């Protein structure tokens, strides 16, 4: 196991040579991945600006309120990604337990007076005028934590595949944050579950574990349904994507308006800043969970389809990195990120298109939101870190 540690250039004069050398950082960074993520983030800025410049009731009259904040979020996110790259995911191993504990702590803090409720979900922490969503960190924490546990014995060469004991431990680890969010943040719970499933699959654990997990999920859903834990309005809300009239003033309205906005975009869209649905603020939460509708209306099939293609590029590179990874720890990290970004994108765009139930999950890189942006870029940092560790022959 050759552990290559990245060291940042010490002397400026050497920078170009170091970057252009065969073994350099520049050659090892996955540029397609980086550029796709950057393109989505920049596009996101435009869409957020378009969606919020008229929303004076939430911007205090400053049309660039959300734009400026998202630019800061992006800068922080990119800095975090660079930090992760600089440290490397291997060196972060030691910090994983701490990071996990920090995430869990933050998630529990949400239920203290520090927590803030937005749109009926208690998932935000308000710190010094800045809101954080600790659940987002949990995604990274679960990935790193499970990778650590599942890969330990395999990477040490002690076994071919994760032992049952390790799998139980990793599931117990993941269950903690899941238990916190499952009550009131359906979207987050779904994403975390899919991440766990993806990790189990990619870790080489026997298939019965994955199947068992799926069955457990189905059983839980059936239980919840039959026991009547949920109120009728919650069921209606969940099912509203199949028939918006089931909840016409709530989620159904949202679904319907989202469909109208996207549908009216046609092939070329109305042009950036020209969407009547967007300008008229007919789609609620358009700069966050429904950011895709702005693209659909103003950029049309070409623009919105382009976003799907960019996401596809990221996922393709991430999977490629997963396959090329030199150890199971790295593979699990990359595969976990794929499961996360893929499902979260599918759920987010799917609900805007009316084929998935409405659940509050952001569109990675595009939706307005600090924490989501941070962890998306941390994911890029982790992927790049994995990418830079692989032997060049696999590139």
């Amino acid at each position, binding site marked *: 196991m050759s552990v290559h540690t990245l060291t940042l250039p010490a002397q400026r004069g050497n920078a170009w040579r170091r970057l252009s050398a065969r073994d350099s950082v520049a050659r090892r960074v996955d540029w397609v991945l980086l550029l796709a993520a950057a393109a989505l983030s920049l596009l996101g800025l435009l869409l957020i600006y378009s969606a919020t410049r008229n929303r004076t009731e939430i911007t205090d009259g400053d049309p660039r309120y959300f734009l400026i904040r998202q630019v800061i979020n992006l800068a922080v996110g990119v800095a975090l990604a660079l930090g992760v790259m600089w440290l490397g995911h291997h060196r972060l191993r030691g910090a994983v337990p701490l990071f996990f504990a920090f995430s869990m702590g933050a998630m529990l803090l949400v239920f203290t007076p520090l927590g803030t409720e937005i749109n009926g979900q208690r998932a935000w922490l308000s710190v010094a005028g800045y809101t954080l969503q600790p659940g987002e960190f949990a995604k990274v924490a679960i990935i790193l934590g499970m990778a650590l546990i599942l890969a330990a014995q395999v990477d040490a060469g002690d076994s071919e595949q994760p032992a049952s004991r390790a799998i139980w431990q990793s599931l117990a680890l993941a269950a903690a944050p899941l238990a916190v969010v499952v009550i009131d943040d359906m979207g987050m719970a779904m994403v975390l579950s899919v991440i766990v499933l993806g990790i189990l699959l990619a870790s*080489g654990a026997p298939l019965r574990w994955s199947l068992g997990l799926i069955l457990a999920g189905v059983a839980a859903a059936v239980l919840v349904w039959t026991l009547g834990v949920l109120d009728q309005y919650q069921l209606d809300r969940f099912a509203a994507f199949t028939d918006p009239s089931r909840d016409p003033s709530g989620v159904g309205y949202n679904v319907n308006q989202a469909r109208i906005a996207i549908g009216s975009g*046609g092939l070329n869209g109305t042009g950036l800043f020209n969407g009547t649905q967007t300008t008229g603020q007919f789609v609620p939460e358009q700069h966050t969970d429904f950011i895709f509708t702005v693209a659909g209306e103003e950029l049309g099939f070409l623009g919105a389809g382009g976003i799907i293609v960019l996401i596809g590029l990221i996922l393709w590179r991430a*999977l490629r990195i997963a396959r090329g990874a030199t150890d199971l720890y790295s593979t699990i990290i990359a595969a976990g990120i794929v499961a996360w970004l893929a499902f979260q994108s599918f759920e987010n765009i799917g609900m805007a298109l009316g*084929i998935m139930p409405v659940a509050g999950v952001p569109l990675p890189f595009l939706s307005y939101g600090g924490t989501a942006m941070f962890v998306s870029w941390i994911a890029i940092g982790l992927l790049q870190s994995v990418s830079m560790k692989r032997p060049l022959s696999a590139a």
Partner: protein
Amino acid sequence: MTNIPETGRTSRITIRLVVIQILVFSLLLTLGGRLWYLQIRQGDEFAAEAAGNHVQQVVQPAVRGSILDARGVPLADNETRLVVSADRTELGSLPDDGESVLADLAELLGMPVEEVTNRVRLCDAETPQPCWNGSPYQPIPITDEATTQQALQIRERAEDFPGISAEPTAVRRYPSPDGANTAQVLGYLSPVTDEEVAETEDTDAPLLRSDQIGRSGLERQYDSYLRGRAGVTRYEVDKFGSVLGESESEPGEAGANLITTIDSRVQAVVEDELAQAIETARDTHDDVSGRNFEADSGAAIVLENDTGRVVAMASAPDYDPNVWVGGISANEYERLTSEDSDNPLLNRAIQGQGPPGSTFKVITTTAAVNAGYDFDDTYDCSSSYEVGGQEFRNFESSSYGPITLGRAIEVSCNTVFYGIAHQEWLADGGTDPVDNPDDWLFNTAHDFGLGEPTGIDLPNEAAGRIPDRQWKQDYWEANQETWCEIADSDREDYEARIARENCTEGMNMRAGDMLNFSIGQGDVLVTPIQLATVYAALGNGGTLYTPTVGRAVVAADGEVVEEFEPQPNGQLPADDETIGNLRDATAAVMTTGSAAWRFGGWPQSEIPLRGKTGTAEASGDQQTTSWLATYSEDYTVVMTISQAGTGSGASGPAVRNIWEAIYGVGEDGSIDQDAALLPEPNRDLPEIDENGTIIPQRDERNE
């Protein structure tokens, strides 16, 4: 993967990653497919929905054009009133369906609660008036007589009156200048129905839900001119309804004004005289029936001879056209339309039809002359004429001996015409008609324009009826079954005997039918306007004109859009000599004949009047219908009153008074030009100023 052992990777993990990859790209493909479906396949639908979402239409209704008399005096115009309306949609969203709001409103307006709630309910088959038969999505007017005080209260206490609005609105007004009501000629408006909105959706002039539409009379005939086009301003709005900008808009166009041929002063006189004549008849004892005359209805027309223009047209009983404005009340509607009502909505001048009686004799005379009877030969005016054992008698069985056709008209002798009709009937084959019979009487009547509508520019004109051989055949075919059924019964009453005869021979033209027809009795029907065009043609030397009420359409900016020229509609089937003879005979009617007792002292040499009386037998136990058709060089005046007695008796004084008003003739026969309302027909359109305003030529004497 050559490097699997090197990376310590098991092939199982690689396979798992490939599976994940397939799953991931399936998801993305699903999204792409769905996106294509929404944006490309269904994109147009959503684009339309998006437009409906964010475009708000504000409609500025067009002001309806005025209807003016020949001098530019408004017969129908608009005034601004405070209209209180209710929005059913908004009321329906209240917990009690808005009942308490309507109750509060009724109290504020000082109206009975029931009246208010009735007005906002929707009409259907079981719902009696008042009810709303317009679109349920349109504000429903409750009253247009709100005071400023009430309107302010409604507006200031908007939270107490959800769904109620009080807006100044242009509403129709029928000002009755000079007392000229003109109700049935003007017609009335009512709200459009949903079907009408749907029907006109794709036309150039789509109807709006808030529109009123002409339902009868001129309001209906000239609706497309008068209505104008509403302006539509489209605003782009956000979901809060705030305006973001203006979208494509269509400017409105005020309705055009209609100048009519009516002279409101003459109209007022005609209406008044008709009403007076009816009043008088009702106070008059009828010796035949032994009770006072019913005088249930009547009509009167003043027509220009040389153009066919209608100067005045009255129908009794009438009503106040303003009752329609702002929604009609239950009582009013009941009074106007119930079975017990006397149908005041009917314009009897064009829709009422009955046997014309002796006024028909000018037609029979023309037929006779055309058939070869010399006008100046003498024909026997015996007291009665017998055909097939049945006796046809003169009026009051009078007898004048051998007289000319002219004298027969003058004294209204029936038997002279019976004789001619009988001869013609025999000549055509009698009960066994020849092929292609001459049918002089029927053909001449058709040539006078009878049996078909005159084509006047008013809706729903009646056609009248000439009971010729074809009609007999058709009528028999339609009724044969009923007749024969009665004929087969054991009944022996009068009806059964007639039915027995009709069952087998009802298609035959019998001698009696012909005799009745020759004096305008039996199955023949004419409308007052048909008779007026016939006498106007005699007055102008033989040209039948299609009568007109519309004179010109003037756009809101003053441009004359259309001028309606006189419409000649053929010549009388009579040569100049015959027309001259008829004119002489009808002049004699006024001086020495049947109408002379009513026109004594008329300045006949200065203003020669001609005419013919008619006293038509009606069916059953009804009293006779009075007809009087008169004409001068310029005008024709026809009056008819149902169940009122003789032509001269019931209508004579009224018709004379109309003539006196037109020409300024005093009761003693003196002529005062200054008092004459219309000594000669109005030839010019009223003056229009540069703003497009039509300047009424008011009568100085009235001011």
